[in-house]
């Protein structure tokens, strides 16, 4: 009997404690948001210079390092060696976890600038009023110093100004400008994936043997056959397929035709995000309309049915699903 009434009295302290915990949590949230809102409008120029420096550094320096790739609770490790010789890039990426895999790339021309490079470097002007090519689509914030792979870095946040693209938190090596950490941030500030070097040696001599594949079934990455652009105009596509809607700021940067697969590929970029549009002649399979996602990569497949052959249209990229769908559904034959 005595025990019983004691139990009853215990209910209130419990409720009070539950309330207290909630109040404490709420106040923590409030103080956290209050801190994050301190940064007002900023001069974008210094951050923008850092991005330009990054674009050069990643192509022109020789380095070897180990990095992690994380998304959705899983983590992979890989090592990367990058060497520049006679104005060409030689690279090898080796997966260190999971099944053994390698990707190599030999002889990409570093002097050849494509639309993406030009956008990042501000050589292509997109709107008439834009102060920098980014300012119409992204805001840049320098968020102070940190350390990645044992090296001091400057953190730059790239915040999209519309819902058509994702944001980035980039950590750039103070010494060389190399990109040491990339966090891709979706809507609602949700982190979608993270690349991060854990160890890197920059400016080292890379032996050519380091760039040879050890496995016989390695993948050889494509070299870019899209045009190096000389002027300040983005290339215009005059092929068989028209993309009726593009998110603002995206320009064509590459175009490939694969006769064997009967596939046309168009590649678009806004300087940071890239997506590919694949148009395949699809007579047998009749691919359904599908939306898929892995990490930050989104794919949207749809059909394009004409009087003649039927086509499967696929849009793949690190862009919001709604953007991918809208692009895919706007693809039309010019014929």
């Amino acid at each position, binding site marked *: 009997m005595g025990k019983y009434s004691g139990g009853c009295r215990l209910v209130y302290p419990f*409720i009070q404690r*539950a*309330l207290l915990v909630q109040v404490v949590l*709420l106040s923590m949230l409030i103080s*956290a*948001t*209050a*801190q994050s809102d*301190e940064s007002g409008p900023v001069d974008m120029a210094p951050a923008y210079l850092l991005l330009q420096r*990054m*674009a050069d550094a*990643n192509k022109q320096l020789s380095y070897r390092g180990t990095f992690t*790739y*994380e998304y*959705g*609770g*899983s*983590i*992979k490790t*890989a090592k990367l060696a990058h060497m520049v010789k006679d104005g060409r890039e030689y*690279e090898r*990426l080796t997966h260190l*976890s*999971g099944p053994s*895999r390698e990707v190599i*790339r030999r002889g990409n021309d570093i002097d050849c600038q*494509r639309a993406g490079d030009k956008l990042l470097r501000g050589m292509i002007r997109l709107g008439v009023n834009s102060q920098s090519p980014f300012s119409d689509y992204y805001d840049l914030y320098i*968020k102070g110093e940190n350390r990645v792979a044992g090296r001091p870095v400057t953190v730059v*946040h790239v*915040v999209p*100004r519309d819902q058509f693209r994702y944001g980035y938190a980039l950590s750039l090596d103070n010494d060389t400008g190399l990109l040491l950490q*990339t*966090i891709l941030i979706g*809507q*609602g500030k*949700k*982190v979608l994936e*993270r690349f991060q070097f854990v160890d890197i040696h920059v400016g080292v001599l890379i032996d050519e043997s380091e760039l040879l594949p050890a496995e016989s*079934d390695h993948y050889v*990455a*494509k070299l*870019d056959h*899209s045009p190096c652009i000389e002027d300040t105009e983005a290339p215009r596509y005059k092929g068989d397929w028209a993309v009726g809607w593009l998110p603002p700021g995206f320009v064509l940067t*590459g175009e490939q035709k694969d006769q064997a697969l009967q596939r046309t590929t168009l*590649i678009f970029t806004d300087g*940071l995000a890239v*997506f590919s549009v694949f148009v395949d002649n699809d007579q047998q399979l009749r*691919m*359904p309309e*599908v*939306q898929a996602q*892995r*990490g930050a*990569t989104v*794919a949207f*497949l749809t059909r394009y049915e004409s009087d003649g052959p039927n086509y499967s249209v*696929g849009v793949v*990229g*690190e862009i919001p*699903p709604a953007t991918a769908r809208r692009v895919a559904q706007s693809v039309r034959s010019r014929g």
Partner: protein
Amino acid sequence: MMESVSAMVDGEANELEFRRVLKEIVDNDELRHAWQRYHLVSASLKRELPNHMVDLSDSIRAAIDEEPSHAKKFPLHTIVKPLGRFAIAASVAAIAVVGVQQYQQQGQENLVPVAAVDVAAEEDEPFVHRPFPNPQVPFRTVNATKGAATDTSEPRPVIILQKVSPENQLDQRVIQSRLNELMLQHADNAALNTYQGMMPFARIPQAPKE
């Protein structure tokens, strides 16, 4: 007001908004439904949605209403009571949903059931332009809802979120392999056209074939 609720769900509401919402929500069905809806959207975006939704909030509210009041002993509680009821009902409902979800997880492998994912949700969410939090972007490295022990080093294969034309009888594996192939091609394109060099290839899970 709806905006304040949305901000609360995102953990971005200020103190004033919090007070206003908590005061209002006790007697406002519309707001309570918005609160539920936003959480549902948030959970679906994080792919934390259980197979079956069980809404216990109403029965819990009713049960709390039936509880004999102890408020006379604590005059202060007459003010806090409605708020407390709501908070308790909400936390118990949250626990109930989590419990169901844990139970459902077993046997559920790579595919997210088509019906569980509200793909339109992302579009409906209003776009809010504001800086990311500083200094650290939170990153969930431990995925509590999946079998962590089997899935720590290897990213899952392509997850089909929604088949828009379900009448198609094409084998799931054919679609998966097609998606994998396109994603590999895209990684190749991204490696050529971004500032990241070959790093986009790390996104590709399988041994790529030439």
